[in-house]
């Protein structure tokens, strides 16, 4: 399995296996970046995995006032789900319950596409008849009266079916501390890549999972092959010098964006080096038969 090493870091000769997803992007603005960030953070909370949260969501990047439709500071948010219907449901619930209540917020489409999801079109009924539609230059906005003025929300947002979810890196290190530093470094590099998010806390997951369980009705359970404390008890994937593993999962609007993100993460890990960071880097897959997108680590090395 181990084919090559780069600057002392062992790279598994394997690939990340990823799936097609439905996705959309939003631009959330507010009077200050603090409140734009707050609305975006609230809206993308509890959105780490489609398995339990309905969608995966996160902040793509912050936007300067001149990059947003209303000239205020903003944040671009990405949302991923397994079906259009679920994405629509999550979009409506999250914008309605998290962005609409946030002081001074406004919400716009963050992606233009032929297919659309209902955004303001679904939320306008909150206006109870006092909602106002404004069509300006081919874009339609809803104005809903709220207690601090008006919530402005674009009528629709774009839907892409070319999105990819499940790009990943398994970062393995000598200690939990070194592994965390490596994962933080890689997550920071990935956060800078446009059109991708790493939906887990801070971009990092420690509870990698495998399909199935010894218990009936449990779809996924701990990835015992990568648990350092189970070495010896199960067929382990870890070497003797690895004492911790962290995973970064990546969702992107395009397959190319996911590859770019993995490339950026790998480059950051290689730069950090094996002494302070990762000793070994792997990737998760299901044998290659489930997901149509394969990202081979050796093709993405710096």
């Amino acid at each position, binding site marked *: 399995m181990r084919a090559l090493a780069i600057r002392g870091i062992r790279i598994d000769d394997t690939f990340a296996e990823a799936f097609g997803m439905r996705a959309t992007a939003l631009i959330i603005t507010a009077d200050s970046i603090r409140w734009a960030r707050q609305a975006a953070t609230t809206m993308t909370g509890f959105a780490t995995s489609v398995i339990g949260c309905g969608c995966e969501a996160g902040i793509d990047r912050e936007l300067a006032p001149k990059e947003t439709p*209303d000239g205020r500071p903003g944040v671009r948010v990405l949302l991923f789900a397994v079906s259009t219907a679920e994405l629509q449901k999550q979009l409506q619930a999250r914008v309605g319950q998290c962005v609409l209540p946030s002081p001074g917020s406004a919400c716009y489409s963050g992606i233009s596409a032929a297919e659309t999801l209902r955004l303001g079109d679904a939320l306008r009924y909150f206006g109870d008849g006092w909602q106002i539609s*404004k069509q300006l230059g081919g874009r339609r906005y809803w104005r809903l009266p709220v207690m601090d003025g008006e919530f402005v929300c674009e009528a629709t947002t774009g839907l892409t079916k070319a999105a990819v979810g499940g790009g990943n890196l398994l970062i393995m290190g000598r200690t939990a501390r070194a592994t965390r530093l490596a994962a933080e470094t890689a997550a920071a590099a990935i956060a800078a890549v446009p059109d991708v998010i790493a939906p887990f806390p801070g971009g990092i997951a420690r509870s990698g999972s495998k399909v199935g369980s010894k218990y009936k009705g449990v779809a996924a359970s701990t990835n015992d092959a990568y648990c350092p404390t189970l070495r010896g008890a199960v067929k382990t994937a870890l070497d003797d010098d690895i004492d911790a593993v962290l995973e970064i999962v990546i969702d992107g609007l395009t397959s190319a964006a996911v590859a770019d993100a993995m490339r950026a993460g790998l480059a950051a890990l290689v730069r950090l080096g094996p002494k302070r960071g990762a000793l070994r880097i792997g990737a998760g897959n299901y044998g290659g038969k489930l997901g149509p997108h394969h990202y081979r680590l050796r093709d993405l090395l710096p």
Partner: protein
Amino acid sequence: MRPLVLSLRRRPDQRLDMSPLVPHRLAGKSAAEIGRIALQTTRAPLAVADIFDLRMGNPTHVRIEGSCDRLDQVGAGLTDGELVVEGDVGAQAGRLMTGGRLTIRGHAGPWAGSAMRGGVIEIFRTAGDRLGGPFGGETVGMRGGVIVVRGGAGECVADRMRRGTIVVEGPCGAYAGSRMIAGTLVVLRRAGALPGYLMKRGTIVLGAGSEELSPTFIDCGAHELVAMRLLSDFVRSYSRRAAAGMRGPLRRYAGDMAVLGKGEIFVGNRN
């Protein structure tokens, strides 16, 4: 690309119907065919060649030179392409336009942009009464597109407007935005009496207030709304002055409470 140019030789003895002289109706016609197009509105026949000098060119861009206020329906029914008029025009310029761009480098008579659905009209000097408004019997006025008037406008600007944007950089007469159904009207200088008369929905922005605001409009306080930022941004490419006039807090009046009352008049602080 050379435009097709029509130069008016003299002031016509009768009003002319200029609606055949739009790009999509001139496409594919020869100079002789264009010369035979009838423009008369009385029993005295008058063809293009009788009163215009024609210089052939690409008909997607038409220029009318030496125009005067007897030329009615200039650019009426325009669908695409560009029509530029040097001089004044009569009534109904750009009526029922659906696209393209009509530029009038002079004054326009009443009903300019009447019931238009799309495209852009720019009038360099003033516009007459009922800019964008419907004819008698029609229930809806302007339904889309943009009208920009660099000078002032007459009474009942945006009468029964349904959608689209009108910007008047100068003053306007009484009843601006009368019977508006929706859409946006911006007037930078002072409006006449009773703006928004019987408006149901829609937005009127008055940079310098009006002669008299109807008591059926209710003061909702001064606000800096996000919607005004979007409107300001949209309008900027047509009128920088209008865009600037929408920045900062504007006082919002809701009305007309004599009817549905879901419209709004924003008044700037240059009162």
